[in-house]
């Protein structure tokens, strides 16, 4: 926001980059969430598993496809923002680059979660509904905590103050499991130069992804690849 022709900002392109990468990651994860259940629904999964294919490699291939697609899209996004930065004079900054790097963790977590939901769901519609519901709750808590914590208590009524407290506590609790919360935390840690927290968050994100993928593999083995199983 310019005031008297002057503006002071930490990283004006961080929020647009966060929004863009979040939409991208969610879109690709949504595709992942319907992929397995749709293939099972259409019977193509059964045909596919007639060949030398195991459950783990199938899901890894699906996951890799999403991540590769995300990385391609991320390259386009980075080029776009770099051009905009050069044209406008707005600095990209450390927070922008950490948001871009952190979005890969976001995409991997949401894609793995999408695959798990897809494996567990009976049909693509259920998978979509469950995936969107869970992610919208997580995004809602993050957004509410972000908006409300930036608002002074002096302008809020007592009931809203306690709502604010509840969302902030929920956001703090979800910091370790919600990718939307820990990616923001990662950006803050990078800004502060807190290498330990950065390492913990990256490790946690990798572990979550691996855990979700192994759960999806187990679930696929149990449910099988035939329609109606």
């Amino acid at each position, binding site marked *: 926001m310019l005031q008297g022709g002057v503006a002071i900002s930490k990283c004006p392109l961080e929020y647009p980059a966060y929004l863009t990468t979040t939409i991208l990651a969610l879109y690709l994860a949504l595709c992942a969430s319907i992929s397995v259940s749709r293939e099972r629904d259409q019977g193509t999964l059964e045909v596919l598993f007639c060949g030398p294919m195991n459950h783990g490699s199938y899901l890894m291939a699906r996951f890799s496809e999403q991540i590769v697609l995300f990385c391609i899209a991320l390259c386009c996004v980075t080029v776009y923002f770099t051009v905009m930065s050069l044209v406008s004079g707005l600095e990209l900054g450390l927070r922008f680059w950490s948001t871009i790097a952190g979005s890969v963790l976001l995409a991997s977590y949401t894609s793995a979660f999408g695959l798990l939901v897809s494996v567990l769901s009976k049909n693509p519609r259920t998978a979509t509904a469950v995936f969107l519901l869970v992610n919208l709750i997580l995004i809602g808590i993050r957004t509410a905590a972000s908006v409300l914590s930036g608002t002074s208590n002096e302008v809020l009524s007592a009931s809203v103050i306690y709502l604010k407290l509840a969302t*902030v506590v929920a956001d703090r609790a979800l910091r370790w499991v919600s990718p939307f919360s820990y990616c923001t935390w990662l950006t803050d840690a990078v800004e502060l130069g807190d290498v330990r927290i950065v390492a913990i968050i990256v490790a946690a994100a990798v572990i979550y992804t691996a855990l979700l993928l192994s759960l999806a593999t187990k679930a696929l083995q149990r449910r099988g690849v035939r329609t109606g199983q």
Partner: protein
Amino acid sequence: MTALAPVTAPSRTSVLCFLVGSMLLMSCALHYAAASSVPEMEDQFVYGLTVWDGLTYTSGLSPQPIDEIHIIADSDNILAPYDTRAYFWPITGEYVADWSSKQILVEGVLEVILDGRVVETIALETYTLRYPEGFNSLNVEVLTGDRALAAHEEYRQAVSDFNEAADLYRQALAEYNSTIAEMFRQMREEGKTFSKEEIPTPPTEPEPPSYYVQSVRKAFVVNLPGGQYTIRVRQDDRIVPGSTKKLYVFDPRRSGLSFVVRPEDSYTVALRSDSEEHTLYLAKDIPLYIQLFDVEEYSSYHYTRLMNSANPTAGLGMQNEYVWVISSPQRPDLRIRVYRGNRIVSEIDEKPYQVVQTQSSALGYTIVEWDPTATEMMGPKPTFSAFRLHVPPGEYRLQAVFSSGEPISGGGRALRGVRKIGHFWWTALVPLFLGLGVYTVRRYSIGTLQSAATRLPEDS
């Protein structure tokens, strides 16, 4: 009753019931309204607080219903244990003490507990606050024990000396005025003239003490490293009821140098850049006036609770936020070095400036360098002191340095000219059209394949 005449007997009863009910409700509401304007006082133990806020001392209160106190680590903080009358004032949403009706110091020692173990026992101590540059100054120091007594005695003596000097001055002034009046009378009535040497010089008005020392009181002076403690007041072998509280002692997360930026055309509305990650964007070719202050970054939750200790909802929901707090008066000992790439393009010194209103009836002002020799025209004091920065559009780096040239930690900022990019809005639609293009091509390809497939049996 005329109004009730057309109403039948059962409905008349209902109307009467309604009227009686309404009157009861109204009387209840009136009673509530009357009661709500007189708060309910309660005798209770409170801690009167005089806490360090990073820049100066702030007064507060920790009433019994609020079980936590927040103070900054490694600073002297005053916790005065009082038995008083306190009440909740809903208009400001905080507890208030009625000191004038009851204020009894509770004797005892303050026990500081960490991990269930008493780590420090603090006795009541005489203390005072000394304001070396006057009561309205932010510069305050806590003096304890004999130093407090000596400082207060010295101040009391200085005030007494001033009062004596003021009495003498008033007498001398009265004598002077009567002498002058007599000389005027002689000039007027007797035509007498006086030489320059005969005219008496007026007495010099004595200066009051430039500093202030508060009266000496007793309290616990608490200075602890960061951590979460429990405190309580012990009287012999019993704990004073209501004195047990959590004591949060917090450290700053980071410290740095704040750039307070005043654009020339809106100098009263300053922008603040507190951390080195900030970039200053300039959309116009205008001079900037920059002031430098030391800053420290604290947890918003702890700091808000420190500043509003008697407000039960203060700081709630701010646990994840941080706030930069100015921790020094304006730094006069620094310079700003302006870099373009690796080349120093200028080095600016802080100067005093005066805001001069335009001479005509139209609104407006200009900012000019204050001239100490033209105080009649410009006023006795400058409006503000700042670094004036006016650079052509481009990309710069500002670095605050000591007069020796050594850069100060946290004192760097990027300065960039920014261009409007509103006319590039259409670029956001590129992916959409690209997607539509891919979709159309794919549909066309599938359509071609399908038609080829349907033609195949006819040919064969």
